[in-house]
């Protein structure tokens, strides 16, 4: 087990390095930072000195090495656009994104599992068919459209919920939370639903499929043959076995939820890293872009590890079925 974890950690490091390379190559490909930094009247000579200062004239490997070195210390320099330390910007916005991702993740997980189990247990019922069909609408409309429509209905027409931002926030140390104030919680509803809908559908179908599979298994038949009550069979035996792959995949989803928050945050002006990223893309604020990529990769890698450990926890066979990571 230890060996396994070590191997995974090693892999994670490799993954991070690859991502770092991609992130770093952004600096080379996406425009010339200097021209975005300084105005027209700055002379060629001045530009050159700036280049040197920014180390843009060093050979690629050297630059990459120093990039890694600084990245390791969470130092991504100063945002071209906002002129603040990138890491500070990201940390300031991370809580918003994490809260959004977490809430919508839980939303998706809770309803996903419930509906999934329901549709699996009475899969011939017309309600199940209805649920399955309706749920597809969630994945058949682009997220941003769903978001805009939700705003239109619930913020503009009904005026029940806020249309943008986080509402009142409370600072717990460096963590700025919106969960403690009513307006903060209200502001969370629409974005969370928008972001969670897709994952909900995904989880629900996954749970349903897994459950149907499990219900066909011998040990379920045997459990019935032992005269166990349906409750015991369904919710103790079947569900537990269902959850093994489900948790793996849901965990991995969390990573993509955070990435997909880019869209949701744009639509709802949610002050998170996603919005920060897309603004940076628009204004070619490379340091922020690079840092964001690294962050996403890190989060994903960490989640991946946790999920694997979780897998150890629930599955006594300690059989890590990588192919269970169908994504």
């Amino acid at each position, binding site marked *: 087990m230890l060996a396994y974890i070590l191997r995974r950690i090693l892999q994670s490091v*490799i993954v991070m390095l690859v991502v770092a390379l991609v992130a770093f190559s952004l600096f080379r490909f996406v425009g010339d930072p200097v021209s975005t930094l300084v105005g027209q009247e700055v002379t060629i000579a001045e530009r050159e000195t700036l280049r040197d200062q920014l180390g843009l004239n060093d050979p690629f490997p050297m630059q990459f090495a120093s990039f890694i070195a600084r990245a390791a210390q969470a130092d991504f320099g100063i945002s071209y656009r906002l002129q603040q330390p990138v890491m500070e910007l990201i940390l300031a916005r991370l809580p918003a994104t994490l809260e959004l991702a977490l809430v919508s993740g839980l939303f998706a997980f809770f309803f996903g599992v419930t509906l999934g189990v329901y549709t699996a247990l009475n899969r011939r019922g017309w309600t199940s*068919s209805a649920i399955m069909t309706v749920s597809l609408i969630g994945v058949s409309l682009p997220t941003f*459209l769903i978001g*805009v429509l939700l705003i239109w209905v619930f913020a503009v027409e009904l005026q029940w919920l806020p249309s943008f931002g986080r509402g009142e926030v409370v600072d717990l140390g460096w963590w700025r939370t919106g969960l403690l104030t009513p307006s903060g919680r209200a502001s969370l509803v629409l974005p969370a639903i928008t972001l969670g809908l897709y994952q909900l559908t995904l989880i629900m179908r996954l749970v349903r499929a897994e459950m149907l599979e499990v219900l066909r298994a011998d040990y379920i038949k045997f459990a019935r043959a032992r005269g166990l009550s349906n409750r015991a069979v369904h919710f103790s035996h079947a569900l537990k076995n269902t959850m093994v792959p489900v948790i793996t995949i849901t965990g991995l989803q969390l990573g993509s939820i955070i990435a997909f928050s880019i869209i949701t945050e*744009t639509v709802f002006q949610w002050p998170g890293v996603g919005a920060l990223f897309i603004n940076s893309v628009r204004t070619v604020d490379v340091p922020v872009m690079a840092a964001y990529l690294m962050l996403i990769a890190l989060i994903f890698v960490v989640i991946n590890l946790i999920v694997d450990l979780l897998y150890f926890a629930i599955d006594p066979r300690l059989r890590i079925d990588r192919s269970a990571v*169908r994504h």
Partner: protein
Amino acid sequence: MPRPGHSDAPSDQATAPQPSGTTQARPQDTLRRAWDSDLAYSFRTSPVALVSGVVALLIILAAVLAPWLAPQNPYSTRDLILMDGFTAPMQPSLLGNVYLLGTDDQGRDVLSAILYGARISLFVGFSAVLFAMVLGITLGLVAGYRGGWVDGLLMRIADVQLTFPSILLALLIFGIARGMIPPAYRETMAIWVLIVAIGLSDWVQYARVVRGATMVEKNKEYVQAARVIGVHPARILTRHILPNVMGPVLVIGTIGLALAIIAEATLSFLGVGVPPTTPSLGTLIRNGQSYLFSGEWWILAFPAAALLALALSVNLLGDWLRDALNPRLR
């Protein structure tokens, strides 16, 4: 989605007799056999599959035949009459022209725009899926068949791939492409960049499924035998193993198509989609949503409806297919 009535026939239980494939149709009437086949049967008997099949087919046909069906060519800027902009459906415009679904801000006939837009969306969708499929299947086969370090490497790459959710990857590829492609070509390249971006972010699923199946198949006697008599691996893979994984691959592909179409829409919302002069469904929706509050509902409603109909029907088909083939995949 409602499961075809028979889909839980004893075929699922080892103990029960096997009803499937019992028709001893003579070779000549393959058509009849196809009609009788379980797949066709479950399609015939599943209303959802039928409806969505028809809808999808109609949209695809309409898209393909757009040049002949559309009242106007929304790409030819010569045909655009700006003064007809924002004309409501079935209302005479300032110049007295009437448009079935109205016009958008450029005086573009919404119906035509949708037809041509669906064309682009489908083109992007299919190409992206095809790209992902070919890439995924090839790598999957190789990984599964060769095994060893090749497998290890490819699967690590797959892991890294998963680190980058499709949207992010696409944005990245765009960022890089924008840096490398000279401005003049950006617009023309955009669609291909889009295809590569979406395709790249999708190949892993295929690879995983195919790899798994390959690993199982390659140890089956017939493959071993083929090996022994020195049949070329490529031939073994394509002739013997590939057919066995086509089912799952098809399902992923169908659902992947829907995903690709949505992804295209999302990306154009983020401003990295196809150029505004050749709008896809996504571009139309992105454009339309800015008129949500200004009263020109049709500019958003109709393209959105079209996208929903297309994606939903394709999704439902995929679902049905998944159940009909009942493959072991999510």
